[in-house]
Structures are given as structure tokens and as C-alpha cells.
């Protein structure tokens, strides 16, 4: 017997209108039906509409340069690390967690990538190192949050400072730039655009399966809605949370290889600002950062592409540099207001 509270949680805010046995099979679609549909799919329409709008507006304002071969490659190389990170971190956000250490973790992974590649020349080892280090960071992050019951923001803040500190210390030890001595070894991650697209597709597909079709994803979303309810329904909350952090770690580790291959060297600021990029991308994609059943992996995909298109398009359009942040901010605010504003009749428990 479900409690009233649980019942309320289980009601999707935008439940599609179910067809009943009385519904005629081939009924003519009226204007009211379209309006009803548009209302029920409002968030999706705004999310995809914003993406399409950005695409059209910048195609016009850039005089077509948006779709030049070079710029398409640019977009792919900018989207790849962001998309992979967002796809992984959506698991953390879906269960109600928060992570602001991703930039520093990318910095740390990048630093170690350079050392490992320069010492061994093995790209495989670089990949393994990045994944291992990122997973370790996220296990500590998630573990401390779960074991000591501290806010995930605080634990990730600690990881952020520690990782950034290690990077800064190592960079400051030498006058020489820490860079790949033979960057052609990682060319696959920086110049092979087919490989980048394929990697994104494979990782997104794997995440999609994990997120929508396995216990891990379903329970993570349930925890995001109501941890107590999820626990009472049989979910091992701590284990699920930890697994989410591990998935995020794997994705951030892989994304780090793309990030460092794209740059080729490490400075003390490597990766800084990535945490904001991921948050903005997910919000642009329509993700509620409080998590829950409304979390969709498509938010990572659409959000990452929209975010990169925004930055890239504004720059190529010739918007004065002094105004780019302002324009970005206004667009971001509009999209957020349209997609994340709570409807008056929302029936959701406060978290």
C-alpha cells in the first residue's frame, strides 16, 4: 500500500494522455489535439526548439560559416569532451548529487597523461591512467559524501582543491611547459573526427542503456526523487550512488584524454571552468539539477551541442567579444525560464 506522499512522487509531472479502449482508432487530429500535445510536450519542444533556433539563427548570422567543413570539425572537437563528461555526470545529478570537481579532475588526468605518454609512449596506458585516476577521485568524492553524510558539493570541493593543488604544484616545479613530446601519438583523439563522433555515439549509447534500461539508472532517478522512498522500494541507495560516481569517473577519464589531446600541454588552469560548462550544458538540455525521474540523457546530448553552438556561433557571427558573455547569459536565462520553470500544478515533493 503506497502512502499518499509516495503516490504523489510517482505521478509524472507531464504524464502523456493515455489512450483508452473508447478512443477511436483513426480519429481526425483537431487543433485542440495539437494544442494538447504541444502542452504536454512543452519542455521537449522548447529544448529541441532552442537547439533548432540556435542552429538557424547562427546559420544566418554567420553567413553559412557555421556549416563549413572546418567549423564542423571545430564543433565536433569542442563537443566531444563536454558531451562525454555530461553523459557521465548526469548519473551523479540524477540521484541528487552535485559535482564541481570535474575541471580539476580533468586537469589532474591531463597532467598524468602527459607524464605517462612521455614515459611509455602507450596511448592505452594513458587511457587506463585517466580512467583510473578519475574513478579514484570520484570514489573518494562519492565515498566521503556517503560515509560521512556530507553534502556532495562539499566533498567535490575538497577533491577540486586537492586535484588543482597537485596540478599547480607540478606545473610550478619546472620552467618548461609540461607537454607531449610526441603529440602525434594521441592524434587519434585530437584530429580524427570520425573517431570522436564514434566515441560519443558509443558512450552515449552505453550510458543510455545504463540510464534508462538498468536498475542502476532507474534507481538513481528514484533516489533523486525521494531517497527514502527508493530505499523502501528496495534500492541500495549507497551502492547505487557509488556506482553512479564510478560511471561518472569513467566518462570523465575518457573525456580527459580527448581534452588533453586537443590542447597538447598542461598549465595550472587546465580544465578550469569545466564544471560550469557541464552544469550549463545540462541545464540547457532541460535537466533539472535536483535530479529525479525527469532526468533524461538527451539533456546531456542536446545541451552540450547547444552550448558549443552558442559559443561558437556567437564568436563566428562577429558579436563583439565584450558582449558575448552578456548575450550568452540572456539566452541561457530565457531557455532556463522556459524549460525549468515549475508549472503551477506541479505535484512533486519538496526535496
Amino acid at each position, binding site marked *: 500500500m503506497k502512502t499518499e506522499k509516495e503516490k504523489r512522487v510517482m505521478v509524472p509531472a507531464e504524464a502523456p494522455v493515455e489512450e483508452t479502449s473508447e478512443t477511436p482508432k483513426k480519429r481526425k487530429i483537431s487543433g485542440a489535439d495539437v494544442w494538447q500535445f504541444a502542452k504536454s510536450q512543452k519542455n521537449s519542444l522548447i529544448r529541441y526548439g532552442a537547439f533548432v533556433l540556435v542552429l538557424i539563427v547562427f546559420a544566418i548570422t554567420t553567413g553559412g560559416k557555421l556549416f563549413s567543413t572546418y567549423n564542423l570539425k571545430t564543433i565536433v572537437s569542442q563537443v566531444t569532451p563536454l558531451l562525454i563528461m555530461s553523459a557521465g555526470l548526469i548519473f551523479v545529478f540524477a540521484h541528487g548529487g552535485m559535482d564541481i570537481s570535474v575541471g580539476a579532475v580533468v586537469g589532474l588526468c591531463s597532467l598524468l597523461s602527459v607524464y605517462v605518454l612521455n614515459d611509455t609512449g602507450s596511448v592505452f596506458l594513458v587511457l587506463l591512467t585517466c580512467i583510473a585516476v578519475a574513478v579514484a577521485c570520484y570514489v573518494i568524492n562519492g565515498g566521503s559524501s556517503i560515509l560521512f553524510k556530507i553534502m556532495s558539493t562539499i566533498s567535490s570541493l575538497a577533491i577540486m582543491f586537492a586535484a588543482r593543488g597537485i596540478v599547480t604544484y607540478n606545473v610550478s616545479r619546472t620552467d618548461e611547459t609540461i607537454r607531449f613530446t610526441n603529440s602525434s601519438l594521441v592524434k587519434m583523439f585530437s584530429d580524427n573526427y570520425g573517431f570522436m563522433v564514434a566515441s560519443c555515439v558509443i558512450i552515449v549509447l552505453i550510458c543510455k542503456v545504463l540510464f534508462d534500461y538498468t536498475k542502476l539508472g532507474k534507481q538513481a532517478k528514484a533516489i533523486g526523487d525521494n531517497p527514502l522512498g527508493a530505499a523502501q522500494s528496495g534500492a541500495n541507495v549507497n551502492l547505487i550512488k557509488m556506482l553512479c560516481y564510478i560511471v561518472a569517473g569513467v566518462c570523465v577519464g575518457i573525456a580527459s584524454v580527448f581534452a588533453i589531446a586537443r590542447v597538447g600541454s598542461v598549465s595550472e588552469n587546465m580544465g578550469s571552468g569545466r564544471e560550469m560548462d557541464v552544469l550549463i550544458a545540462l541545464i540547457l538540455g532541460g535537466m533539472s539539477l535536483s535530479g529525479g525521474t525527469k532526468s533524461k540523457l538527451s539533456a546531456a546530448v542536446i545541451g552540450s551541442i547547444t552550448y558549443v553552438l552558442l559559443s561558437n556561433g556567437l564568436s*563566428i557571427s562577429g558579436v563583439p567579444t565584450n558582449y558575448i558573455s552578456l548575450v550568452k547569459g540572456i539566452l541561457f536565462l530565457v531557455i532556463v525560464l522556459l524549460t525549468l520553470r515549475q508549472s503551477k500544478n506541479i505535484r512533486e515533493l519538496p526535496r
Partner: protein
Amino acid sequence: MKKRIIGIMLIVALVVSLAVTVAACNNTQKTKIGVMLYNFTDIQGTEIKSYCEYLEDNFDVEFVYEAVGSNDEAHISGLQNLLSQGCNAVISGYDTALSRSIAMCEEAGAYYAVLLGEVSKYEYLEENGYQPTLVEGMDSKYFLGGVTQFGGNPETVGVAYAQAAYNAGLKKIGAISFPEFTFKDGKTIYDTFKAELAKLDPTAEVYELQTFMYTQELCEAEVTKLLTNHPDVEAVLGLGSGLDYIYPALQNNNRSDVKLLALGYNNTVESLLSGSLLTAGTNNYTQCVASVFVRIWDAMNGKSFADQGEDDINGVAGYPIITSQAELEDFKTYIIPADKSNGSITAEELKNAMVTYNENATWAGLNELTGRTLEEIKEARAA
């Protein structure tokens, strides 16, 4: 239904975009040069932009600007955005992600140069027994080098600042800079300052160099540490942007009695020179831009200097120092004038330094032009 609507929206987007792409095929072909800086709002950014606009009036060139964040990925994204706009050359303020930037420009067939700092062609790594090893990309024909600051001689700044401290009768001086790995010249200036002051006044004491990492909070912590350890300090040698960071930190510590010998320049210099500011100084922005622009223009016209050696990859830019109101007036008149034809380097002087317009132009001549002191510029304008 939902998928169908999304599908229709995407198709519409694609059709409109393709139509625009086709329509946009007949663009005018002006040389396009991208400029990347952290910002274009401070005095450095606005002056660089202003000189670029002057160049636009005198050459068949268009400049586009990209403000980039301080991290490597933002730098690469900014560079990609500029190359996407069809830039024939890119001027970066900094040597961030240098090898990768050169490789990307090489791939796009665009030239690349560093505006606000010198670059090293070789590195000395432990694994190579500290033997000189060519840095990846440095031998690319698309890389046109950097610009050595402080007129190629940071020691002169140390000497000039020591003289100013001696003239003011200062005996106890602290020194704060950015970390050595980010600002090598800071340490050189400090060492020279200390040595020179010891010669001028053996009783003067210069405290050990403190460093901080680019934030106001960290600067304040260092200033507080200095004031706590040496409460009788009379002045600070502010190498880490004295005016932007150290002066506000001194004010926040209620120590307006402490004098400041600052590297850097901003709009407060005029009022502060009559108070606690003893010296200010900055790169000659015009000379920095001129040095790389000459190289880019010549390279695009297939010209090069006969006397430029393979290892001569850094041009020179001067560093005017301001110690009085009179010098400040000269600085405003000749270094940062609104009308750049009265400034450090005119378009005619620039053309005369280019092989494209003058077959006898030399690398040494270019460095002489871009390394002129404030006095020399004043004389040139008076002629």
C-alpha cells in the same frame, strides 16, 4: 508525433542553413587577422584593439577579436573559432598550448604569432640530458615567433626602479610578484633591483621576494604577510601587477603610507603619482602589435628578412617607465594617443620596416623600430 515534429524542425533548420551557406559563397577577400587576449576591456586590450583599427585604416586588413579564458582548452576553442572565421593569421597574447596552436594553424594554412611574451624554440628536459631539444611546431613556417618584453632587457627595469627607490630615500622595501614559472622576468627584475639598490645605498634592505597566483585574495594574503613580518616596511616593489592587485591590497590593510613601485599601468596612475605611487610602467602595446604585424604581412606576401637567423624568433617591444607627471604626459601623448598616427609607430614607419614595401628592410631595423624608448619616439615625432 513528437519525433515527427522534431524531424520537421530539423529538416527546416537544415534547408535554411544550406540556403544561407550557398548564398554566402561570394565574400570579399580581405586579409583577416584574429587577435586573442584575456580581455579587450582593460588598457592593454583597448590599446591593442585601437592600434589594430589604425592598421585597418592603412592596410587592406580586417581584425577580428576573441576574448579567451585563461585555461588551455578555452584558448584552443578561441583559436578554432577564429580559424573558422577564415582568419589568415592569428595573434595570440600568450604562449598557451603553443605547439598545438601552431599545428592547428598549420593545418588551416594560417600564420601564428605570440604578442605579449617571448617564446623558446628549444627546451631543456631532464630525459634528454638537458640538451636543447626543438619544441614541437617551432620549425613550422606558419609560426612567426613572439615578442620579448622590457625591450629585451628586464634588467634595465630593475635598475630604473632601484634608482627611483634610492631617489625617494627608501630603506625598507618588500617585493611581491607572480610565481617565477609564470613570470620569469619578475625574478630577474627583483634580483637586479636588489643588487642595484645595494650599490646605491648599502643600508637599504630589500626583503625576500613573495609570490601569489593571480587572485586578489591571494595577493591580499601576501601583502598582509609582508606587513605583519615587516611592519616598518616603507615601500613595495609590486611586480605582480602593482596597480591592479597590490595597491588595493595595501589600501585594504589601511597602509596608504606604504609607497609603491609598480609594474603595470592603468587609469589611476595620474592621481596616484602625486601620492603613494613612485613608478609605473607597461609594455608598449603599439610596438608589440607592430612587431608581429610586420612579420605576418611579409610572410603573407612571401617575403622575409635576409638578416633574420633561424633562431631569431622573438621581436622586441619597449617598456616605458613613468616616474613623474611630465613622463605621464609624454606617455599619454606618444604611447597611448587616441590618434595612432601620432603614436609610437606610424603606418609609414611600419611600411618602411617591411620587405614587402622596402627591399632593404631588415630584422635589426624592425627591432630597432619596435624597441624605441619614449624619448626616441618623442624625437621621431618632433622631426
